[in-house]
């Protein structure tokens, strides 16, 4: 499902050039839950963004569901993400002025999702947020926010989930719940690429790749 080959990426700043990715390759298959570990600045988030089509590498290729991501135009990449990809972030990135239900349904802005509202309610129920449907993100606990973000990521029944430190701000119970959801998603035929610096979180994955200074360790 995800195939990254020999990815290289550098950032230039006044302090010099940072090599974020240096010849990184990666493959995540159907039903597989892969964790990428590494210290801060090791390039793991850059790898995730590159694999998700949000950051073009300097060289190398990314194939997502058989499509060479960076050979297609930006709108086509957006369409692919809208239809087949879900995101979960450490900061939740919920839209503050939308209710929980509206946040979960936000992907509808990008593509037509069949029975979106009933699917959203189903997810609310699944993640114990039914009574929070009309609340706004700032009225939720951090655990609830992440569950809402996870619900949003799952609305379009994606084939791939990208999760960037999804448990970074959560208590152990909520962290376990989120990891369990990711695992369950993979078991049901999805592919998960989890980026984390927590060993416990990485341990939940089927396979772990460790990055150090932009290179596989």
């Amino acid at each position, binding site marked *: 499902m995800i195939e990254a080959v020999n990815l290289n990426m550098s950032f230039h700043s006044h302090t010099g050039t940072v090599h974020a990715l240096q010849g990184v390759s990666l493959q995540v298959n159907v039903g597989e839950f892969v964790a990428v570990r590494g210290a801060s600045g090791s390039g793991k988030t850059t790898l995730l963004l590159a694999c998700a089509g949000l950051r073009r590498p300097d060289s190398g290729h990314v194939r997502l569901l058989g499509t060479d991501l960076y050979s297609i135009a930006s709108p086509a990449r957006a369409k692919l993400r809208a239809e087949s990809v879900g995101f979960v972030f450490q900061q939740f990135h919920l839209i503050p002025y939308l209710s929980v239900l509206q946040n979960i349904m936000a992907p509808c*802005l*990008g593509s037509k999702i069949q029975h979106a509202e009933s699917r959203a309610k189903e997810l609310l129920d699944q993640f114990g947020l039914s009574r929070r449907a009309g609340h706004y993100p700032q009225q939720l606990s951090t655990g609830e926010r992440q569950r809402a973000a996870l619900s949003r990521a799952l609305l379009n029944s994606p084939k791939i989930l990208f999760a960037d430190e999804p448990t970074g701000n959560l208590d152990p119970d909520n962290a376990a719940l989120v990891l369990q959801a990711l695992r369950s998603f993979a078991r049901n035929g999805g592919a998960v690429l989890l980026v984390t610096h927590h060993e416990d979180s990485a341990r939940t994955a089927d396979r772990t790749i460790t990055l150090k200074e932009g290179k596989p360790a």
Partner: protein
Amino acid sequence: MTALTLVLQEIRQRLFSFLPGVLAIALATGVVTASFSLLEAHDRETALVLQNKQQEVQKEMDAMEDEYRKITKKMGFNILILPKAQTLADFYSDHQATHFMPEESVKKLAAATITTIEHLLPLLQQKITWPELGRTVILVGVRGEVPFMHRGEKNPILYPVPPGTVVLGHELATSRSFAVGNEITLMGRRFKIHAVNPPRGGKDDITLWINLSEAQELLGKPGLITGIMALQCKCAFADLPKVQAEVESILPDTQAIEFATQAQARAEARQQARKTAEQVIAQWKAGRDSVRDQIKSYATAWAPIVMAGCFLGVAAMAHSNARERRQEVGILSAIGISQGNIFAIFLLRAAIQGLLGSLGGFIAGIALTSAFSSAAVPLNTSWMLVPAWLAPSLLLATPTAAALAALVPAAVAVQADPANILGEE
């Protein structure tokens, strides 16, 4: 979940950053609406007051017309029939005729069935030097009224001067202390003063009236007259040419002219009064036009400045909004919303801002007009002052302009790298 829901929710959340944009647009729209409606209110007020003034003038003129009609009905016009060859310039400047016509002409006219003339008075008039006194006077020989043959007897309008007598003009009598009963000598012949006329303020005051036959003898013009006075013609002023034509058809070698009469003077005064009233109205109208021009020039000068200022203000606020929503742009981009859709969300927000602003400005503009226009424009009809095309134009143009103002900030926002944005804490 639609883009409109998202935009409306965002507006609700950031109402205080949304409203200044609406107010700026309302200001621009209000200025435009008020400019047009104030001009229209001014025009309507002008038209209304003008109509009232014209009606007042017409009413006064109608009253004068009625009075004039009554006067002319009682007085009639005075017509003087002169030989056709008589130059009017000489006649008016010298008060004497240089051409003569047979006295028989008056009989011909009296025999005709002319209905518009009441009295016929033949006369012989010359300006002479009164040799005994050495001063210039006007000598008029009159014989009294010639009756119309087809009409019954009437009281004569002027009695003839008896032979051997003279009637003196007021100035002639007073300057020489002549009185009724005195005798005077004119061109070697003695006359008894039969009457002294009251002052008339014209050439009549230096005129001597004597019997026509005696005048013909004194002036050496036997059987000749200089004209026929046709008095109290029954005609309206406007029909005078018809009377002249009728007289001239009976006496083809003559011309008929109208004397300056009191009725004519009044008619002239009436015309003058109308002219003055019309001038006053024209001056008032010119004043109103000048005020209108001032309103128009202010509107023409200020409206574009206000609109441009508001446009820039909306653009600045859109820029600020776009910066504030960077993370949102990153999230939407990450979950697969295309740049075009995100761009449309920004423009939709601006268009709603424009729509609300234009509605608010439109209402404010009308309210402003109601406040500043006079009682000639009642409050409940103020909306009618706005040109029909303005409301749809504003409702179409303002959201478009607001969307244009947001175009660059929106374009910059959607171009931002979502990866960078999502990496920001």
